[in-house]
Protein backbone atom coordinates (compact mmCIF):
# COMPACT_ATOMS: atom_id res chain seq x y z
CA UNK A 1 0.00 0.00 0.00
CA UNK A 2 0.99 3.62 -0.42
CA UNK A 3 1.69 5.97 2.42
CA UNK A 4 2.73 9.60 2.52
CA UNK A 5 5.66 10.11 4.85
CA UNK A 6 7.53 13.40 5.19
CA UNK A 7 5.75 14.74 2.09
CA UNK A 8 6.89 11.75 0.04
CA UNK A 9 4.76 8.87 -1.23
CA UNK A 10 6.31 5.51 -0.34
CA UNK A 11 5.28 1.86 -0.63
CA UNK A 12 4.84 0.09 2.72
CA UNK A 13 3.53 -3.29 3.85
CA UNK A 14 0.63 -3.73 6.29
CA UNK A 15 2.98 -3.27 9.25
CA UNK A 16 4.41 -0.02 7.90
CA UNK A 17 7.79 -1.36 6.68
CA UNK A 18 9.10 0.11 3.43
CA UNK A 19 8.88 -2.42 0.63
CA UNK A 20 11.19 -0.49 -1.70
CA UNK A 21 14.40 0.42 0.07
CA UNK A 22 15.34 2.95 -2.61
CA UNK A 23 12.51 5.15 -1.32
CA UNK A 24 14.25 5.52 2.03
CA UNK A 25 15.66 8.94 2.91
CA UNK A 26 16.82 10.48 6.17
CA UNK A 27 13.60 12.50 6.24
CA UNK A 28 11.49 9.35 5.85
CA UNK A 29 13.48 7.78 8.70
CA UNK A 30 12.87 10.79 10.92
CA UNK A 31 9.15 10.70 10.18
CA UNK A 32 8.83 6.95 10.96
CA UNK A 33 10.86 7.51 14.14
CA UNK A 34 8.48 10.34 15.05
CA UNK A 35 5.51 7.97 14.73
CA UNK A 36 7.29 5.67 17.21
CA UNK A 37 7.95 8.61 19.53
CA UNK A 38 11.69 8.62 18.92
CA UNK A 39 13.92 11.64 18.22
CA UNK A 40 16.89 10.42 16.22
CA UNK A 41 20.29 11.24 17.71
CA UNK A 42 23.77 10.51 16.38
CA UNK A 43 23.72 7.17 18.27
CA UNK A 44 20.49 6.20 16.52
CA UNK A 45 22.02 7.00 13.15
CA UNK A 46 25.06 4.85 13.91
CA UNK A 47 22.75 1.90 14.57
CA UNK A 48 20.66 2.61 11.47
CA UNK A 49 23.63 2.62 9.13
CA UNK A 50 24.98 -0.56 10.77
CA UNK A 51 21.62 -2.29 10.20
CA UNK A 52 21.45 -1.15 6.58
CA UNK A 53 24.98 -2.32 6.00
CA UNK A 54 24.29 -5.77 7.50
CA UNK A 55 21.11 -6.07 5.47
CA UNK A 56 23.03 -5.26 2.28
CA UNK A 57 25.45 -8.08 3.11
CA UNK A 58 22.53 -10.47 3.55
CA UNK A 59 23.17 -11.04 7.26
CA UNK A 60 20.13 -12.21 9.27
CA UNK A 61 19.75 -9.72 12.10
CA UNK A 62 19.23 -10.68 15.72
CA UNK A 63 19.49 -8.92 19.08
CA UNK A 64 22.48 -11.14 19.90
CA UNK A 65 24.33 -10.07 16.72
CA UNK A 66 23.71 -6.41 17.45
CA UNK A 67 25.00 -6.91 21.00
CA UNK A 68 28.24 -8.26 19.55
CA UNK A 69 28.48 -5.67 16.75
CA UNK A 70 30.78 -3.31 18.60
CA UNK A 71 28.44 -0.48 17.49
CA UNK A 72 26.15 -0.71 20.50
CA UNK A 73 25.41 -3.01 23.43
CA UNK A 74 21.98 -4.53 23.98
CA UNK A 75 21.21 -2.30 26.96
CA UNK A 76 21.72 0.89 24.95
CA UNK A 77 19.88 -0.60 21.98
CA UNK A 78 16.82 -0.92 24.24
CA UNK A 79 17.27 2.61 25.55
CA UNK A 80 17.41 4.04 22.03
CA UNK A 81 14.52 2.03 20.62
CA UNK A 82 12.29 1.02 23.56
CA UNK A 83 9.76 -1.86 23.34
CA UNK A 84 11.08 -4.18 20.67
CA UNK A 85 14.23 -2.43 19.44
CA UNK A 86 14.90 -4.75 16.53
CA UNK A 87 11.51 -4.37 14.89
CA UNK A 88 11.44 -0.60 15.48
CA UNK A 89 15.01 0.12 14.38
CA UNK A 90 14.64 -1.92 11.18
CA UNK A 91 11.42 -0.09 10.36
CA UNK A 92 13.21 3.25 10.71
CA UNK A 93 16.17 1.94 8.70
CA UNK A 94 13.82 1.03 5.86
CA UNK A 95 14.74 -2.67 5.82
CA UNK A 96 12.46 -5.70 6.27
CA UNK A 97 11.39 -6.79 9.74
CA UNK A 98 13.75 -9.60 10.74
CA UNK A 99 11.98 -12.92 10.91
CA UNK A 100 13.50 -14.89 13.74
CA UNK A 101 13.96 -18.39 12.42
CA UNK A 102 11.27 -20.84 13.34
Amino acid at each position, binding site marked *: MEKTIAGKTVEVNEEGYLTDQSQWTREVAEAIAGEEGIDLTERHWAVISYLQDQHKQGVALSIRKIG*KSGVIDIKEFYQLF*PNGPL*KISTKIAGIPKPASCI
Partner: protein
Amino acid sequence: MKRLLILGAGTAGTMMANHLKPVLGKDEWEITIAEESKVHYYQPGYIFIPFDMYTPEEVCRPTEEFIPEGVNLVNKKIDRILPDDNKVLMEDGSEIHYDILIIATGTHPSPEETHGMLGSQWRKAIFDFYTFDGSVALRDKLRDWPGGKFVVHIAEMPIKCPVAPLEVAFLADSYFAEKGIRDKVEISFVTPMSGAFTRPKAARAFEHILVEKNIKIIPDFAVERVDNEDKKIIDYGGTEVSFDLLVTVPTNKGSAVIERSGFGDDLNYVPTHKGTLQSKVKPNIFVIGDASDLPTSKAGSVAHFEAEILTENIQRYIKGEPLMDDFDGHANCFVETGEGKALLLDFNYNQEPVEGTFPIPGVGPLRLLKESRMNHLGKLAFRWIYWNMLLKGANVPFVSSHMTEEGKKIENKK
Protein backbone atom coordinates in the same frame (compact mmCIF):
# COMPACT_ATOMS: atom_id res chain seq x y z
CA MET B 1 37.85 -48.70 1.36
CA LYS B 2 36.44 -45.21 1.79
CA ARG B 3 34.76 -43.95 4.92
CA LEU B 4 31.61 -41.92 5.45
CA LEU B 5 31.51 -40.58 8.98
CA ILE B 6 28.36 -39.32 10.70
CA LEU B 7 28.75 -37.20 13.83
CA GLY B 8 25.80 -37.65 16.17
CA ALA B 9 23.25 -40.46 16.45
CA GLY B 10 20.21 -38.39 17.34
CA THR B 11 17.18 -38.23 15.06
CA ALA B 12 19.05 -36.86 12.02
CA GLY B 13 22.27 -38.90 12.27
CA THR B 14 20.46 -42.18 12.93
CA MET B 15 18.17 -41.63 9.95
CA MET B 16 21.16 -40.96 7.69
CA ALA B 17 22.89 -44.17 8.78
CA ASN B 18 19.73 -46.10 7.90
CA HIS B 19 19.23 -44.32 4.58
CA LEU B 20 22.82 -44.67 3.43
CA LYS B 21 23.63 -48.22 4.51
CA PRO B 22 21.61 -49.88 1.70
CA VAL B 23 22.67 -47.46 -1.05
CA LEU B 24 26.44 -47.21 -0.58
CA GLY B 25 28.38 -50.14 -2.04
CA LYS B 26 29.54 -52.23 0.92
CA ASP B 27 32.84 -53.18 -0.70
CA GLU B 28 33.62 -49.56 -1.36
CA TRP B 29 32.22 -47.65 1.60
CA GLU B 30 32.41 -48.14 5.31
CA ILE B 31 29.94 -46.13 7.43
CA THR B 32 30.88 -45.01 10.93
CA ILE B 33 28.68 -43.06 13.34
CA ALA B 34 30.07 -41.36 16.44
CA GLU B 35 27.84 -40.71 19.44
CA GLU B 36 28.70 -40.40 23.10
CA SER B 37 25.20 -41.13 24.47
CA LYS B 38 24.22 -44.76 24.94
CA VAL B 39 20.57 -43.72 25.11
CA HIS B 40 18.47 -42.46 22.22
CA TYR B 41 15.82 -40.10 23.60
CA TYR B 42 12.47 -39.53 21.92
CA GLN B 43 12.69 -35.78 22.37
CA PRO B 44 9.10 -34.94 21.30
CA GLY B 45 8.07 -36.87 24.43
CA TYR B 46 9.76 -34.38 26.76
CA ILE B 47 6.70 -32.11 26.82
CA PHE B 48 4.51 -34.95 28.11
CA ILE B 49 6.73 -36.09 31.00
CA PRO B 50 6.15 -33.06 33.27
CA PHE B 51 2.39 -33.64 33.11
CA ASP B 52 2.62 -37.39 33.81
CA MET B 53 1.34 -38.22 30.31
CA TYR B 54 4.47 -40.22 29.43
CA THR B 55 6.80 -42.04 31.79
CA PRO B 56 10.53 -41.35 31.46
CA GLU B 57 11.04 -44.98 30.33
CA GLU B 58 8.76 -44.43 27.34
CA VAL B 59 11.14 -41.94 25.75
CA CYS B 60 14.39 -43.94 26.15
CA ARG B 61 15.81 -46.67 23.95
CA PRO B 62 19.40 -47.86 23.47
CA THR B 63 21.21 -45.87 20.77
CA GLU B 64 22.59 -49.03 19.18
CA GLU B 65 19.14 -50.51 18.64
CA PHE B 66 18.60 -48.10 15.72
CA ILE B 67 22.02 -48.34 14.12
CA PRO B 68 21.80 -50.74 11.16
CA GLU B 69 23.97 -53.82 11.00
CA GLY B 70 27.29 -53.20 9.33
CA VAL B 71 27.52 -49.59 10.51
CA ASN B 72 30.22 -48.96 13.13
CA LEU B 73 28.99 -47.19 16.21
CA VAL B 74 31.81 -45.38 18.03
CA ASN B 75 30.65 -44.65 21.54
CA LYS B 76 33.04 -41.81 22.32
CA LYS B 77 33.00 -38.10 22.94
CA ILE B 78 33.95 -35.98 19.92
CA ASP B 79 36.55 -33.28 20.42
CA ARG B 80 36.75 -31.43 17.09
CA ILE B 81 36.63 -31.62 13.32
CA LEU B 82 39.82 -30.93 11.36
CA PRO B 83 38.41 -30.11 7.90
CA ASP B 84 41.81 -29.54 6.28
CA ASP B 85 42.99 -33.01 7.30
CA ASN B 86 39.64 -34.77 6.64
CA LYS B 87 39.62 -36.17 10.14
CA VAL B 88 37.83 -35.93 13.44
CA LEU B 89 39.63 -35.88 16.74
CA MET B 90 38.01 -37.72 19.64
CA GLU B 91 38.35 -36.64 23.25
CA ASP B 92 40.44 -39.69 24.15
CA GLY B 93 43.04 -38.64 21.57
CA SER B 94 42.07 -41.11 18.88
CA GLU B 95 41.31 -39.94 15.33
CA ILE B 96 38.81 -40.96 12.67
CA HIS B 97 39.69 -40.24 9.06
CA TYR B 98 36.82 -39.63 6.61
CA ASP B 99 36.20 -39.14 2.91
CA ILE B 100 32.74 -37.69 3.50
CA LEU B 101 31.51 -36.17 6.76
CA ILE B 102 27.91 -35.62 7.83
CA ILE B 103 27.46 -33.30 10.80
CA ALA B 104 24.37 -34.14 12.85
CA THR B 105 25.44 -32.80 16.23
CA GLY B 106 22.16 -30.99 16.94
CA THR B 107 21.37 -28.07 19.17
CA HIS B 108 21.43 -27.91 22.95
CA PRO B 109 19.88 -25.75 25.68
CA SER B 110 22.53 -23.45 27.15
CA PRO B 111 21.14 -21.92 30.35
CA GLU B 112 24.57 -20.47 31.17
CA GLU B 113 24.00 -17.88 28.42
CA THR B 114 21.54 -15.96 30.61
CA HIS B 115 22.86 -14.20 33.69
CA GLY B 116 21.43 -15.80 36.85
CA MET B 117 19.63 -18.64 35.09
CA LEU B 118 21.78 -21.25 36.81
CA GLY B 119 21.47 -19.49 40.19
CA SER B 120 20.10 -20.72 43.51
CA GLN B 121 16.59 -21.35 42.10
CA TRP B 122 17.72 -23.61 39.21
CA ARG B 123 15.72 -26.84 39.34
CA LYS B 124 14.01 -25.49 42.49
CA ALA B 125 11.77 -22.78 41.04
CA ILE B 126 13.39 -22.58 37.59
CA PHE B 127 13.11 -25.54 35.24
CA ASP B 128 13.99 -26.33 31.66
CA PHE B 129 11.96 -29.09 30.02
CA TYR B 130 13.91 -29.70 26.85
CA THR B 131 16.35 -32.08 28.50
CA PHE B 132 15.54 -35.49 29.91
CA ASP B 133 16.63 -34.52 33.45
CA GLY B 134 14.80 -31.20 33.23
CA SER B 135 11.47 -32.71 32.18
CA VAL B 136 11.63 -35.32 34.97
CA ALA B 137 12.61 -32.69 37.57
CA LEU B 138 9.69 -30.50 36.46
CA ARG B 139 7.32 -33.46 36.78
CA ASP B 140 8.44 -34.03 40.37
CA LYS B 141 8.03 -30.34 41.16
CA LEU B 142 4.54 -30.12 39.63
CA ARG B 143 3.20 -33.15 41.47
CA ASP B 144 2.85 -31.22 44.72
CA TRP B 145 3.00 -27.62 43.53
CA PRO B 146 0.16 -25.70 45.20
CA GLY B 147 -0.22 -23.02 42.50
CA GLY B 148 0.95 -19.46 41.93
CA LYS B 149 2.58 -17.65 39.04
CA PHE B 150 3.50 -20.17 36.33
CA VAL B 151 5.66 -18.51 33.69
CA VAL B 152 6.61 -20.21 30.41
CA HIS B 153 9.56 -18.40 28.93
CA ILE B 154 11.67 -18.40 25.76
CA ALA B 155 15.10 -16.80 26.18
CA GLU B 156 16.14 -16.34 22.58
CA MET B 157 15.38 -17.61 19.08
CA PRO B 158 16.03 -19.94 17.32
CA ILE B 159 15.11 -22.90 19.55
CA LYS B 160 14.62 -26.59 19.02
CA CYS B 161 10.96 -27.37 18.29
CA PRO B 162 9.66 -23.79 18.38
CA VAL B 163 6.09 -24.81 19.19
CA ALA B 164 7.05 -26.80 22.32
CA PRO B 165 6.84 -23.82 24.72
CA LEU B 166 3.29 -23.10 23.55
CA GLU B 167 2.41 -26.76 24.03
CA VAL B 168 3.74 -26.66 27.58
CA ALA B 169 1.56 -23.62 28.35
CA PHE B 170 -1.52 -25.35 26.86
CA LEU B 171 -0.86 -28.68 28.57
CA ALA B 172 -0.23 -26.89 31.89
CA ASP B 173 -3.65 -25.25 31.61
CA SER B 174 -5.31 -28.67 31.21
CA TYR B 175 -3.14 -30.26 33.91
CA PHE B 176 -3.98 -27.64 36.53
CA ALA B 177 -7.67 -27.72 35.56
CA GLU B 178 -7.75 -31.49 36.01
CA LYS B 179 -6.09 -31.15 39.41
CA GLY B 180 -8.75 -28.62 40.35
CA ILE B 181 -6.26 -25.83 41.00
CA ARG B 182 -6.51 -23.86 37.75
CA ASP B 183 -8.02 -20.90 39.67
CA LYS B 184 -4.91 -20.82 41.86
CA VAL B 185 -2.55 -20.64 38.89
CA GLU B 186 -1.75 -17.60 36.80
CA ILE B 187 -0.18 -18.74 33.52
CA SER B 188 1.84 -16.40 31.33
CA PHE B 189 3.80 -16.90 28.14
CA VAL B 190 6.87 -14.68 27.83
CA THR B 191 8.56 -14.53 24.43
CA PRO B 192 11.22 -12.48 22.64
CA MET B 193 9.05 -12.60 19.51
CA SER B 194 6.36 -10.03 18.75
CA GLY B 195 3.62 -12.64 19.02
CA ALA B 196 2.96 -16.27 19.86
CA PHE B 197 4.71 -17.42 16.69
CA THR B 198 6.76 -15.78 13.95
CA ARG B 199 4.48 -16.66 11.05
CA PRO B 200 1.43 -14.33 11.19
CA LYS B 201 -1.44 -16.75 10.43
CA ALA B 202 -0.27 -19.34 12.94
CA ALA B 203 0.47 -16.59 15.49
CA ARG B 204 -3.15 -15.42 15.28
CA ALA B 205 -4.47 -18.96 15.71
CA PHE B 206 -2.27 -19.50 18.77
CA GLU B 207 -3.08 -16.12 20.29
CA HIS B 208 -6.75 -16.99 20.03
CA ILE B 209 -6.18 -20.24 21.93
CA LEU B 210 -4.07 -18.44 24.56
CA VAL B 211 -6.88 -15.97 25.24
CA GLU B 212 -9.42 -18.80 25.37
CA LYS B 213 -7.33 -20.58 28.00
CA ASN B 214 -6.71 -17.41 29.98
CA ILE B 215 -2.96 -17.45 29.34
CA LYS B 216 -1.39 -14.01 29.28
CA ILE B 217 1.13 -13.33 26.53
CA ILE B 218 4.06 -10.98 27.17
CA PRO B 219 5.80 -10.38 23.81
CA ASP B 220 9.03 -8.59 22.83
CA PHE B 221 10.72 -9.69 26.04
CA ALA B 222 14.48 -10.16 25.62
CA VAL B 223 15.72 -11.49 28.95
CA GLU B 224 18.76 -9.79 30.46
CA ARG B 225 18.95 -11.61 33.77
CA VAL B 226 17.17 -13.78 36.30
CA ASP B 227 16.75 -12.45 39.82
CA ASN B 228 16.81 -15.58 42.00
CA GLU B 229 16.19 -13.74 45.27
CA ASP B 230 13.00 -11.97 44.26
CA LYS B 231 12.07 -14.63 41.71
CA LYS B 232 11.69 -12.50 38.62
CA ILE B 233 13.04 -12.23 35.11
CA ILE B 234 14.12 -8.83 33.85
CA ASP B 235 14.48 -7.80 30.23
CA TYR B 236 16.88 -5.31 28.67
CA GLY B 237 14.16 -2.67 28.56
CA GLY B 238 13.60 -3.00 32.33
CA THR B 239 10.31 -4.93 32.16
CA GLU B 240 10.01 -7.41 35.05
CA VAL B 241 7.96 -10.59 35.27
CA SER B 242 7.61 -12.31 38.67
CA PHE B 243 7.28 -16.05 38.93
CA ASP B 244 6.71 -18.78 41.48
CA LEU B 245 7.59 -21.40 38.89
CA LEU B 246 9.59 -20.48 35.80
CA VAL B 247 9.60 -22.98 32.96
CA THR B 248 12.24 -21.65 30.63
CA VAL B 249 13.60 -22.53 27.24
CA PRO B 250 17.21 -21.38 27.53
CA THR B 251 19.21 -20.05 24.60
CA ASN B 252 19.88 -22.94 22.22
CA LYS B 253 23.37 -23.39 20.81
CA GLY B 254 24.91 -25.79 18.37
CA SER B 255 27.36 -28.36 19.74
CA ALA B 256 30.57 -27.24 21.42
CA VAL B 257 32.28 -29.55 18.88
CA ILE B 258 31.44 -26.94 16.22
CA GLU B 259 32.82 -24.13 18.36
CA ARG B 260 36.07 -26.04 18.95
CA SER B 261 36.28 -26.76 15.23
CA GLY B 262 36.17 -23.01 14.60
CA PHE B 263 33.64 -22.77 11.78
CA GLY B 264 30.25 -22.18 13.42
CA ASP B 265 28.31 -18.90 13.52
CA ASP B 266 27.84 -17.00 16.79
CA LEU B 267 25.49 -19.73 18.07
CA ASN B 268 27.71 -22.61 16.83
CA TYR B 269 25.50 -23.47 13.84
CA VAL B 270 27.28 -24.71 10.73
CA PRO B 271 26.98 -22.47 7.64
CA THR B 272 25.06 -24.63 5.15
CA HIS B 273 23.73 -24.24 1.59
CA LYS B 274 19.97 -24.19 2.11
CA GLY B 275 18.98 -26.15 -1.00
CA THR B 276 21.71 -28.85 -1.10
CA LEU B 277 22.64 -29.31 2.61
CA GLN B 278 26.33 -29.14 1.67
CA SER B 279 28.31 -27.16 4.21
CA LYS B 280 30.03 -23.92 3.28
CA VAL B 281 33.07 -25.19 5.18
CA LYS B 282 34.26 -27.80 2.66
CA PRO B 283 32.55 -29.68 -0.19
CA ASN B 284 32.98 -33.10 1.47
CA ILE B 285 31.19 -31.94 4.63
CA PHE B 286 27.37 -32.05 4.75
CA VAL B 287 25.01 -30.96 7.50
CA ILE B 288 21.61 -32.26 8.59
CA GLY B 289 19.08 -31.37 11.28
CA ASP B 290 19.41 -28.83 14.06
CA ALA B 291 23.17 -28.41 13.56
CA SER B 292 22.75 -26.30 10.40
CA ASP B 293 22.09 -22.58 10.12
CA LEU B 294 19.17 -23.05 7.70
CA PRO B 295 16.29 -20.58 8.12
CA THR B 296 13.69 -23.22 8.98
CA SER B 297 12.49 -24.94 12.16
CA LYS B 298 14.86 -26.98 14.24
CA ALA B 299 12.67 -30.06 14.36
CA GLY B 300 12.69 -33.79 13.70
CA SER B 301 10.28 -33.45 10.78
CA VAL B 302 12.68 -31.09 9.04
CA ALA B 303 15.53 -33.57 9.54
CA HIS B 304 13.30 -36.29 8.11
CA PHE B 305 12.60 -34.29 4.94
CA GLU B 306 16.26 -33.27 4.69
CA ALA B 307 17.36 -36.89 4.98
CA GLU B 308 15.77 -37.86 1.66
CA ILE B 309 17.49 -35.04 -0.18
CA LEU B 310 20.81 -35.55 1.57
CA THR B 311 20.77 -39.28 0.75
CA GLU B 312 20.39 -38.39 -2.92
CA ASN B 313 23.07 -35.70 -2.72
CA ILE B 314 25.64 -37.94 -1.03
CA GLN B 315 25.25 -40.41 -3.91
CA ARG B 316 25.55 -37.61 -6.48
CA TYR B 317 28.59 -36.21 -4.74
CA ILE B 318 30.29 -39.62 -4.86
CA LYS B 319 29.55 -39.89 -8.58
CA GLY B 320 30.73 -36.33 -9.19
CA GLU B 321 27.30 -35.22 -10.39
CA PRO B 322 25.77 -31.79 -9.63
CA LEU B 323 23.85 -31.76 -6.34
CA MET B 324 20.09 -31.53 -6.11
CA ASP B 325 19.42 -27.97 -4.97
CA ASP B 326 15.82 -28.04 -3.90
CA PHE B 327 15.34 -28.52 -0.18
CA ASP B 328 12.41 -26.17 0.51
CA GLY B 329 12.61 -25.94 4.32
CA HIS B 330 9.59 -28.22 4.74
CA ALA B 331 8.45 -28.55 8.37
CA ASN B 332 5.47 -30.39 9.80
CA CYS B 333 4.59 -30.05 13.48
CA PHE B 334 1.84 -31.38 15.68
CA VAL B 335 0.98 -28.88 18.40
CA GLU B 336 -0.70 -30.19 21.54
CA THR B 337 -3.31 -27.69 22.68
CA GLY B 338 -4.53 -29.57 25.78
CA GLU B 339 -7.84 -31.30 26.55
CA GLY B 340 -6.96 -34.15 24.23
CA LYS B 341 -6.67 -31.97 21.16
CA ALA B 342 -3.88 -30.86 18.87
CA LEU B 343 -3.41 -28.79 15.76
CA LEU B 344 -1.05 -29.34 12.89
CA LEU B 345 1.29 -27.02 11.00
CA ASP B 346 2.77 -27.69 7.56
CA PHE B 347 5.03 -25.04 6.04
CA ASN B 348 8.36 -24.27 4.37
CA TYR B 349 10.90 -21.48 3.76
CA ASN B 350 8.34 -19.42 1.82
CA GLN B 351 4.87 -20.69 2.63
CA GLU B 352 3.53 -19.88 6.08
CA PRO B 353 1.25 -22.38 7.88
CA VAL B 354 -2.34 -22.07 6.66
CA GLU B 355 -5.58 -24.00 7.09
CA GLY B 356 -6.35 -27.11 5.07
CA THR B 357 -6.32 -30.90 5.12
CA PHE B 358 -3.37 -33.27 5.58
CA PRO B 359 -1.73 -35.49 4.43
CA ILE B 360 -4.24 -36.28 1.65
CA PRO B 361 -5.34 -33.02 0.02
CA GLY B 362 -9.08 -32.40 0.46
CA VAL B 363 -9.50 -35.50 2.62
CA GLY B 364 -7.30 -35.34 5.69
CA PRO B 365 -7.92 -37.02 8.06
CA LEU B 366 -5.82 -34.39 9.81
CA ARG B 367 -6.74 -30.71 9.83
CA LEU B 368 -4.16 -27.97 9.40
CA LEU B 369 -4.14 -25.04 11.80
CA LYS B 370 -7.36 -26.21 13.51
CA GLU B 371 -7.69 -28.01 16.83
CA SER B 372 -9.01 -31.55 16.66
CA ARG B 373 -9.02 -34.83 18.56
CA MET B 374 -7.71 -36.61 15.45
CA ASN B 375 -4.62 -34.41 15.38
CA HIS B 376 -3.93 -35.34 19.01
CA LEU B 377 -4.20 -39.05 18.18
CA GLY B 378 -1.84 -38.37 15.28
CA LYS B 379 0.66 -36.88 17.67
CA LEU B 380 0.46 -39.86 20.03
CA ALA B 381 0.78 -42.28 17.10
CA PHE B 382 3.85 -40.40 16.05
CA ARG B 383 5.94 -41.97 18.84
CA TRP B 384 5.35 -45.39 17.27
CA ILE B 385 6.12 -44.00 13.82
CA TYR B 386 9.29 -42.44 15.18
CA TRP B 387 10.73 -45.62 16.72
CA ASN B 388 9.52 -47.99 14.03
CA MET B 389 9.62 -46.06 10.77
CA LEU B 390 11.27 -42.66 10.93
CA LEU B 391 14.59 -43.61 12.51
CA LYS B 392 14.86 -46.66 10.30
CA GLY B 393 14.53 -44.51 7.21
CA ALA B 394 11.19 -45.91 6.04
CA ASN B 395 8.92 -43.57 4.11
CA VAL B 396 5.99 -42.14 6.04
CA PRO B 397 2.90 -42.76 3.86
CA PHE B 398 1.54 -39.75 1.92
CA VAL B 399 4.10 -37.30 3.33
CA SER B 400 6.70 -36.12 0.82
CA SER B 401 9.91 -34.23 1.46
CA HIS B 402 8.63 -31.24 -0.48
CA MET B 403 5.69 -29.34 0.93
CA THR B 404 2.57 -29.64 -1.19
CA GLU B 405 0.28 -26.65 -1.76
CA GLU B 406 -2.66 -28.93 -2.52
CA GLY B 407 -5.39 -29.08 0.11
CA LYS B 408 -4.20 -25.80 1.62
CA LYS B 409 -6.04 -22.49 1.76
CA ILE B 410 -3.30 -20.34 0.32
CA GLU B 411 -3.88 -16.63 -0.17
CA ASN B 412 -1.94 -14.49 -2.65
CA LYS B 413 -0.59 -17.53 -4.45
CA LYS B 414 2.42 -16.40 -6.46
